[in-house]
């Protein structure tokens, strides 16, 4: 027994210098904008294809959310607040030439005409998907008994709501109508309890994607962790 203890002690002591000699530091790393812009271009925010349209009939809760309007408002506000781009207004009754994302990316004539008409140098469109998923079921969790202090496992009934948000960005050159960037961002949030508020869920998704979305247009910072040796 004493031999084992001594061996453990020796192992611990020999590991100490290695543990003591390293520390974790935080760095702020710059993220270059995904689009090579001057920074003060005129930008038009065209409508997005709603990929959730078919789901709407099945999920009444999505009817409470005007996804197109909420997303456009969010995007416009972020661009105006955190970039020097000038947002150009588009007609409110603007219709996309197609509801197919690939075809939308190839509709260069349509985008060129929009660029000429509005003076926009870059035009943003794409597709949006937002889903609310109520989930319930049994989950195994650890339980420490207050009587004997031992750990047991028990099955508990859990109710959760999941919010899934998926955006595909298509960015077009307003002069040529050509697609200059396509990028996709996804976010999934889960909250405890059933029937959590869908608008709140939507904005939780959007705020978590804010840095990535803005990084399309402007430089952003990202926090990173690294190890340095101290001796």
């Amino acid at each position, binding site marked *: 027994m004493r031999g084992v203890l001594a061996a453990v002690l020796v192992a611990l002591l020999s590991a100490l210098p290695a543990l003591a000699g390293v520390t974790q530091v935080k760095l702020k790393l710059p993220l*270059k904008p995904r689009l*090579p*812009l001057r920074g003060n271009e005129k930008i038009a925010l065209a409508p997005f294809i709603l990929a959730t349209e078919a789901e709407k009939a099945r999920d009444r809760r999505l009817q409470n959310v005007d996804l197109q309007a909420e997303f456009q408002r969010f995007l416009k506000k972020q661009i105006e607040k955190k970039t020097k781009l000038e947002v150009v207004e588009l007609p409110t009754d603007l219709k996309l030439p197609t509801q197919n994302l690939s075809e939308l990316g190839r509709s260069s004539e349509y985008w060129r005409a929009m660029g000429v008409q509005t003076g926009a140098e870059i035009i943003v469109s794409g597709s949006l998907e937002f889903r609310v998923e109520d989930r319930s079921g049994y989950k195994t969790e650890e339980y420490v008994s207050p009587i004997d202090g031992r750990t047991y496992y028990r099955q508990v009934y859990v109710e959760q709501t999941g919010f899934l948000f998926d955006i595909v960005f298509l960015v077009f050159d307003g002069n040529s109508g050509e697609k200059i960037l396509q990028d996709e961002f996804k976010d999934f949030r889960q909250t405890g309890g059933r029937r959590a508020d869908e608008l709140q869920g939507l904005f939780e998704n959007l705020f978590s994607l804010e840095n990535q979305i803005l990084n399309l247009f402007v430089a952003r910072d990202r926090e990173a962790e*690294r190890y340095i*040796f101290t001796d």
Partner: protein
Amino acid sequence: MKKLALVIGTALLAAGCGGSYARTEKAETQISFGSAVARRGLWREAAFRFEKAVEKEPSNARAHNNLAVALEASGEFARALAEYKKALELDPNDSYIRRNYARFAEFYTSYTRTTGKATGGS
């Protein structure tokens, strides 16, 4: 007796001074000081210290790793890449150096990735 104590005292003082001077020349001292200033976010000073450590001991993987981190924090990514590679070459089994290099490589790849074409820039 007093003379003897004086001689011993002087000798110890001289040895102490010599020792402390010798210590500043050591790579570990530079690493230790550099890491202390790095933790306070003084990355330029840290990079200077780690460079000194690398000069003293070019085969010290830890010094190269720390210099790479300081260069990365200062935005000198190409030099940081070279230093991470050197650190890994010197000690390919160190898990901290490997993790740092993997995370830096992920960042650097996305940083240098060019997308689309310029709509302006003039």
